[in-house]
């Protein structure tokens, strides 16, 4: 790389317009309607014509090879135009209907599923896990792979009651959509931070560390004349926020780390307001490489939902209709004390009416 080039800063991203397919530019802001051609294939029509979209899965953790495979298909059949979706799928854009099948064939050759549209399970929003993050209580890419291996048919078809959004996050920071997904898998620690008093006084700011704890479990203390912190283990619920601000307080514990399963969240305003996910299964062990307990639980939820919900009823809407009592009955998951909220708005979750199912 030549070093005599002018160093530019703060130029921001390139203008999107140069990346828009001509038909999209022509119809910009004037679209009339869309149609679903097949699972994973949409058409959008405006006064200036129609654009066809083929949506392909991606592992998201993608090599330059993978991306080049994608750009090649775009070059071959889409005049070079492609995009990514907010859920990390790849979308191929063409104004030639006849190219749709060619794109699908090219993808099939690469063993890349096409789908994720309408009432499908789309790609999984996820995070770094053991691949890149210091905080992770589990792996993310691995969990996505094993879960989607199980659910791939729901990606390539559109026969669920409604859109079903999955998410995986590897720790309580939830870098993604765990708190508002139909089904979410969340890595959890289950033991308090192990404090390294030899490094803490140098690495961590005590007031920040103390303030980081949602439950005020951390107090300053003095060991051998140096200010460090101690954790009231009865008050610790293993959230890991202290570790985020203080590297000397790791929580990782191979024996006890694992995952929890959450259900019933949604984002859209369609019909019902956005909903948070709620706890379904408090703990399943980390059992790599294929986490069978986790895939079983997720499969169970999807199956029960598919069999029981009404058309266009999201998972959370369905549970709201049939009651949580019934949800636990149908899935066979155990309802435990862990399901009872005890954080700051806990009281708002207590059942404060007689309206109940028996």
């Amino acid at each position: 790389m030549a070093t005599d080039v002018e160093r530019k800063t703060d130029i921001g991203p390139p203008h999107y317009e140069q990346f828009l397919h001509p038909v999209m530019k022509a119809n910009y802001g004037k679209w009339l309607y869309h149609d679903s051609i097949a699972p994973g294939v949409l058409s959008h029509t405006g006064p200036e014509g129609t654009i066809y979209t083929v949506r392909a899965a991606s592992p998201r953790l993608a090599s330059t090879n993978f991306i080049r495979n994608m750009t090649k298909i775009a070059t071959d059949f889409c005049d070079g135009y492609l995009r990514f979706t907010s859920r990390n799928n790849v979308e191929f854009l063409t104004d030639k209907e006849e190219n749709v099948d060619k794109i699908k064939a090219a993808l099939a050759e690469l063993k890349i599923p096409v789908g994720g549209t309408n009432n499908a399970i789309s790609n999984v929003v996820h995070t770094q896990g053991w691949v890149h993050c210091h905080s992770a209580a589990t792996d993310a890419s691995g969990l996505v792979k094993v879960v989607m291996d199980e659910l791939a048919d729901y990606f390539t078809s559109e026969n669920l009651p409604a859109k079903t959004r999955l998410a995986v996050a590897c720790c309580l920071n939830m870098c993604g959509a765990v708190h508002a997904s139909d089904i979410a898998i969340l890595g959890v620690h289950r033991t308090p931070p192990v404090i390294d008093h030899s490094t803490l006084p140098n690495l961590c700011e005590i007031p920040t560390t103390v303030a980081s704890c949602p439950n005020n479990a951390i107090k300053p203390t003095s060991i051998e004349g140096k200010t460090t912190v101690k954790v009231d283990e009865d008050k610790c619920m293993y959230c890991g926020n202290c570790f985020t601000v203080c590297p000397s307080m790791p929580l990782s514990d191979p024996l006890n780390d694992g995952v929890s399963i959450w259900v019933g969240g949604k984002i859209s305003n369609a019909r019902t307001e956005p909903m948070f996910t709620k706890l379904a299964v408090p703990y399943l062990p980390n059992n790599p490489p294929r986490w069978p307990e986790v895939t079983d639980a997720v499969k169970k939820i999807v199956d029960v939902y598919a069999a029981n919900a009404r058309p266009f009823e999201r998972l959370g809407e369905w549970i709201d209709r049939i009651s949580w009592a019934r949800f636990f009955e149908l899935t066979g998951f155990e309802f435990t004390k862990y399901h009872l909220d005890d954080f700051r708005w806990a009281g708002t979750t207590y059942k404060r009416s007689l309206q109940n199912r028996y």
Partner: protein
Amino acid sequence: MADDLKIPLLEELEKGPWPSFVTDIKSVAGKSEMAADLLRQLEKSYEDKRGYWKHGGLVGVRGYGGGVIGRYSALPEEFPGVSHFHTVRVNQPSGWVYTADALNGIMDIWDEHGSGLTNMHGSTGDMVLLGTRTEELEPTFLALTQKGWDLGGSGSDMRTPSCCIGPARCEYACFDTLALTYNLTQEYQDELHRPMFNYKFKIKVSGCPNDCTAAIARSDMAIIGIWKDDIKVNQEEFAKYVDSGMDVQGIVVDMCPTSCISVDGKTIDIDDSNCVKCMHCINKMPKALAVGDEKGAAIALGAKAPIVDGALFGSIMVPFIELEEPYEELHDLIERIWEFWDEHGKARERIGEFIERVTLARFCEEVGLDPIPQMVTHPRENPYIFYEEYFAEEGEGSEE
């Protein structure tokens, strides 16, 4: 190099119909020792059920405070390829639209300067170039900027804004999500690249209440399209839906949250005064129904993941704002919000937590918004009112 890969556990992840990231990483492991060692370290994680990354580390490019996440292996002797494994966040174009050429250009840079691995895209929206060494950061940056790319955010700054495809391919878009996102990103380059806030500040932009960027759940400021007037009805097209045998009653009428749709034979009638713009009926019959003409956006502040006070969805601060270039009203609002947060927020206090702490009433007062019923699901239930007006002894009742 890649020949001696012993990763039996990971290879279990090469089975099954879903694209395998293991197979994919392997495909570059031949030319990238970083990729190979990533697999080796990951295999060890799979064996031991724990990660092997050290806690962060401040690295970056000259003059920028954000855009790079430092990462070092905890076992650098064992896995020297990932002893440094920093990520570079590249600011994506609005709507994640690309041409093959543009993307290939970035891949070239990354094959030269990095691991050959990416996330397309990160959860915030950036193109994430995954894994490189400290000394490669500046060259990577130089190469990127030469091709017109710049870094995104990280740390306590404005994070890379992102938006849905909106008017570029969607009939529901109530404003130009791509233009606005571009505008905000350019307008606030300094805030994006040089962390000076109390904490991160994320902006996500969705063109309609379907909220395809999950803005209401994942951005400190969610800008979501909405319209004010009536849903536009095409009765002819509606009749076609009826004729097609669609269960209009069950799928549309009965699912309207405010029961404001009635159907008489092949005619649909919407009581727009009670419609809450949920999109459901439009979603189900996009040819017959369309968003209105008075279009703009609502602004919701404060969404975030659980740490520290529990997860929050954004809360409506402005139920309707018109969004046209040059977006002055919005810029003003954003700046007033940052100013007040900057002055009174605590370190690591997200805007959502901040508003709850200072109270919604005070926040409105300080950033110059009138309290209106649209900001709440209902007025207060508790009687603990901080009355500010009162009569003074002398004033004989006139002071209130």
